[in-house]
């Protein structure tokens, strides 16, 4: 039962976005980290880097494999989570909390419309909305 918090927007590639004014925090979902398994390495763009919606934002490596993280929105990286680079297991332990990846200044708030609502994401990962939240 993957948790899908109600206050976030989601991409089909299993990233989440927490919007605050014209900035947004990005991470990967509980479902994504469950699929990956134990995360052992995280690679993220440096402060000042420009990311484009749907292009690669970084890489998370589990014991088994490397997976791209895609930017769910375009913008300039204001901060990357140094803690998650030092302790990649935070992605598993707190995907929506200390396991966040980057903070971005939104280039185009219109892009947010292309993201999934929590309900849409729940059905995307094949779950009943009632089962989420645990």
């Amino acid at each position, binding site marked *: 039962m993957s948790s899908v918090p109600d206050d976030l927007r989601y991409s089909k590639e299993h990233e989440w976005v927490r919007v605050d004014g014209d900035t947004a925090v990005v991470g990967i979902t509980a479902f994504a980290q469950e699929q990956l*398994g*134990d995360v*052992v*390495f995280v690679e993220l763009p440096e402060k000042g880097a420009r990311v484009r919606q749907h292009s690669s934002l970084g890489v998370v490596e589990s*014991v088994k494999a490397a997976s791209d993280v895609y930017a769910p929105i375009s913008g300039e990286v204001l901060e990357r989570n140094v803690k998650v680079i030092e302790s990649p297991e935070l992605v598993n332990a707190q995907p929506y909390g200390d396991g966040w990846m980057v903070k971005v200044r939104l280039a185009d708030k219109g892009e947010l419309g292309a993201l999934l609502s929590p309900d849409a994401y729940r059905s995307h990962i094949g779950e009943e909305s009632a089962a989420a939240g645990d």
Partner: protein
Amino acid sequence: MTDLKRTPLHDEHVRAGGKMVEFAGYDMPIQYPTGIVAEHRAVRTNAGLFDLSHMGEFFFIGPNAGAAIDGMVSSDIAGLAVGQARYGLLTNERGTIVDDVIVYRLADEEYLMVVNAANIAKDHAHVQAHLPAGVGFDDRSDEMSLIAIQGPRAATILSSVTDLEVREQSIEGLPPFGVTRARVAGSRAIVARTGYTGEDGFEVFVDNDRAAQVWSRLLAAGGSTGLIPIGLGARDTLRLESRFSLYGNDIDETTDPIEAGLGWTVKLDKAFVGRDAIAAAKERGPKRRIVGLEVTGGVARHGYEVMKDGTVVGQVTSGTFGPTVQKNIALAYVPTELAKVGTDLAVRIRDRDIPAKVVKTPFYKRGG
């Protein structure tokens, strides 16, 4: 999916929440809900249970069985006493590696050879092609299951459900690479103190129809104190930390035992298939060698290129994050002149050259 083979323990894996993947034609658990890192740690600190029923079991019977195997395997099989096992290589006339195997002497005139699942058909043909007349050969791979219990608590747990046929022996008293017949959870079994994890541990061979019972009884005996089932993911991280070769990754029919760092398994003062080619390779000295790498800044994986000053010099054959050593570790073939411990190399990860250093192996040693 439908033509994947299943071991007799398939239902147990699914019931335990195992994530099933294809491996060597079998539908096998890569991990359970606990996850690879937790499974790895359980084996290093407590105990873990492995389904290895996909592996192959060849029996050889007759007065010349030992000599016949000795003529096919690189190591000293003729010198095995009853109740002893030895690691070795099946090699071809070119002196390259057909498979890596363990040979167990079960009785005066009875031997068991355990082969890799992906190589069963190939090894079967290879063995038959080199088997002298008069030696009984019985490939029981489809009828036998193999359950391994590995870790510091393996002996205690296994002995609680085992009766040895020889009264004076005990599971705890079985030496490393010792093998004996026993009753495990009431079932006739072959028990050996062998494994692929770098920990103390045992491998238990039983008939397919007994496998589920032996599996459940072992889990019941050890579960309350931390014994958990282990998938192929942790099997790989455990063996790589301990620098055990994986056939198909680190060794295959393009590698010879010398460059693969397995010269210690080769007894050149006897006749066996490939002996002359291996002796010649040793005489020439290998052009490349397998080395251990410690990679800082990314995980090296099978097939990645090894770089020196921007030039491709070799290839990673196995790589992972090692949960016990807490480092990104890899095995790779590099030119002999770059194989010295301490040599600075790089691994090309996602188009960037990430620093890697040649280090001593094994990466992990029990009690060391």
